[in-house]
């Protein structure tokens, strides 16, 4: 058996996914990226291979993706995470036509063909407003773990309206709401609502064609999923593997290259 691997070196975390010749996920790994990208890629691959009990020699093709894609030293090729998220989402939900990906520092809306090809995409500009980091900073300002805030936000009775999606200024906004006696869940609802609105505006730029699949680490946050669904007025697919979608897309590209052999792009 030969395997293909995708390694997604993101701004915050590095993910690796190993697939078999049928495209089934065999193993996945997740580590913090840290400052040494080459090592992060290496470690995530090692972790993934260890979980699968597969030797490195059995990996036929490796694709690097994410901001650190050129640091995946063992990679046979590099593909942007935009293409990889499209591919991964399409692999998980073949009827996907629109992908929403909220990552650590950027948010993307991708229009996808019935074959998982990117038809169009829109991203936030250079500023990280409305990205995953906004949630992390909000959680920190409230003294909470980022994993808790989504569910907490759903308890809101009187959601506040945040005046900013600025990842820096949100902290002062939160402090002033706390000072005026607002409840944590109401503030969190405002936080999720602010990102939801911004994300949906991005989605409308490429057209919100169903099915819509939500990928990236932030898709694990139930508050964000609800916020996006509510503002879109449409259901969204969320896979338990949402966090690994980019790496999975990379692995599927790797698998295609491995089996097609010669059909390498460009």
């Amino acid at each position, binding site marked *: 058996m030969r395997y293909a691997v995708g390694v997604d070196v993101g701004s915050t975390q590095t993910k690796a996914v190993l697939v078999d010749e049928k495209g089934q996920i065999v193993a996945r790994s997740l580590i913090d990226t840290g400052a040494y990208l080459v090592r992060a890629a290496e470690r995530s691959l090692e972790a993934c291979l260890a979980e699968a009990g597969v030797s490195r020699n059995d990996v036929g093709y490796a694709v690097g993706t994410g901001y650190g894609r050129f640091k995946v030293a063992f990679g046979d090729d590099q593909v*942007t995470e935009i*293409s990889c998220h499209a591919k991964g989402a399409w692999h998980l939900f073949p009827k996907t036509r629109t992908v929403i990906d909220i990552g650590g520092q950027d948010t993307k809306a991708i229009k996808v063909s019935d074959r998982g090809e990117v038809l*169009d995409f829109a991203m936030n500009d250079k500023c990280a407003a409305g990205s995953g980091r906004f949630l992390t900073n909000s959680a920190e300002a409230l003294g909470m773990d980022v994993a808790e805030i989504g569910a907490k936000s759903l308890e809101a009775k009187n959601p506040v309206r945040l005046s900013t999606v600025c990842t820096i200024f949100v902290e002062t906004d939160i402090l002033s709401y706390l000072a005026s006696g607002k409840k944590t869940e109401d503030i969190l609802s405002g936080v999720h609502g602010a990102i939801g609105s911004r994300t949906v505006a991005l989605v409308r730029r490429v057209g919100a064609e169903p099915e819509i699949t939500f990928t990236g680490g932030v898709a694990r946050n139930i508050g964000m999923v609800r916020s996006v669904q509510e503002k879109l007025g449409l259901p969204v697919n969320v896979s338990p593997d949402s966090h690994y979608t980019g790496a999975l897309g990379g692995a599927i590209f790797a698998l295609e290259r491995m089996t097609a052999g010669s059909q390498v792009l460009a």
Partner: protein
Amino acid sequence: MSPAAAPEIRYQGKVHELQKELMGRYYAELTDIAKGRSEKKNAHLLIAGNPVELVRAFDMVPVFPEVNVLQIAARKASLPLIQKAEELGYAVDNCAYVKADIGLWQSGYEAPYGTVPKADLLLCNYVGCNVYLNWFEHLAELTGAPAVNIDIPFIRSADGEPSREDIAYVVKQLEELIAQLERITGKSLDWKRLVRTVELSAHVGEMWSEIKSLTKLRPAPYDAYFDSVTMMAVLYCLRGTPEAETFFEVALADLKERAALKQGPLPEERFRVVIEGPPPWPFLRVFRDMFTRWGAVAVASTYSTVGGIWEFGFRHDPQHPLESIARHMLSQNLCNRSFLQRYDQMERYVNEWDADAVVIHSVKSCRLFSAGQGDMREYFVREKEVPTLLIESDLEDPRYFSQAQLRNRIDAFFEALTQRRITAAADLAAGGVA
């Protein structure tokens, strides 16, 4: 999907060499004026829709603050100047060209390529950018130089043509300008010299238009964005002089020869793109490489029309010098045209120059020109089904340039185009619908 490393071949032929020589001489002349070694008078002008022919007819030398500061940016020296202006109180998101020029003035107008003379006349031409109007007002206050503004009505007609009244209104102002130039130089206008200057401009326009049509060929013999800027320097700074005429004769012959030999700027032309918006001058090479590595060549660019659009037939008319200068100022520049006319111009490029895609480079410190580019992207994607990429940095301020993010978007865009080509080819081979 990552392409091979950027090929090292770049077109750096006669055109680039001659340009360097001419621009070197131009800046040497400016330095002579600044240092009092030349008696010549000068006027500071803006690029879009200026009456440079009149300035040349008085044997004055035009100075273009935009060209001065973009060259400083290209030498990676703009940030300290921008920061000097910010210390004076200019806002962070204020036009970075303006800030760099104000910073340059504060530095005694000493630039890496020469010294810029203080203006004998600040000759503003209002073509839709009120920030530029304020720029020249500030220079007038700071330097004490006299300033005039020629008010250019915005083009309101659907066909992009100015009305007779518009032309008469601008001609009247040009007549007033002539009186002012006569006072500054102490000379009367030599009408024959003006006619000759306009003739030279007409000839240069003709040749430039022909050069632009060469990129309709496959492969395009030069990059209509990155190589056009080389020719634009001469087109703007030296138009109306015999030197510019000679330069364009050489450039046309050289590029025609390259076209005949089917030589392009890259070893292989894989994608033909239309680029909208000015380049990020502080990172020109890095930015170019982002396209080069995908085999993407610009076959047309709107930026190359910022100081005049000749490829659709406009020529200066020696029979009617003032009217044709007025017409040029009114309608033959990018900034004074409506968004629909900008769409139309780009659409013609896509169709007539046979492009695969549009790339919009939006300028963070110029909201005036960049506002609406999101709609522009949607117009081309949705209504014209032309793949269109919108990216953003700045033309002068290096702080707005994020290399990883720009490259990510550009890579993803060409990845998608590549993928779709492969799928289409596979469908065709399988006998399906491509």
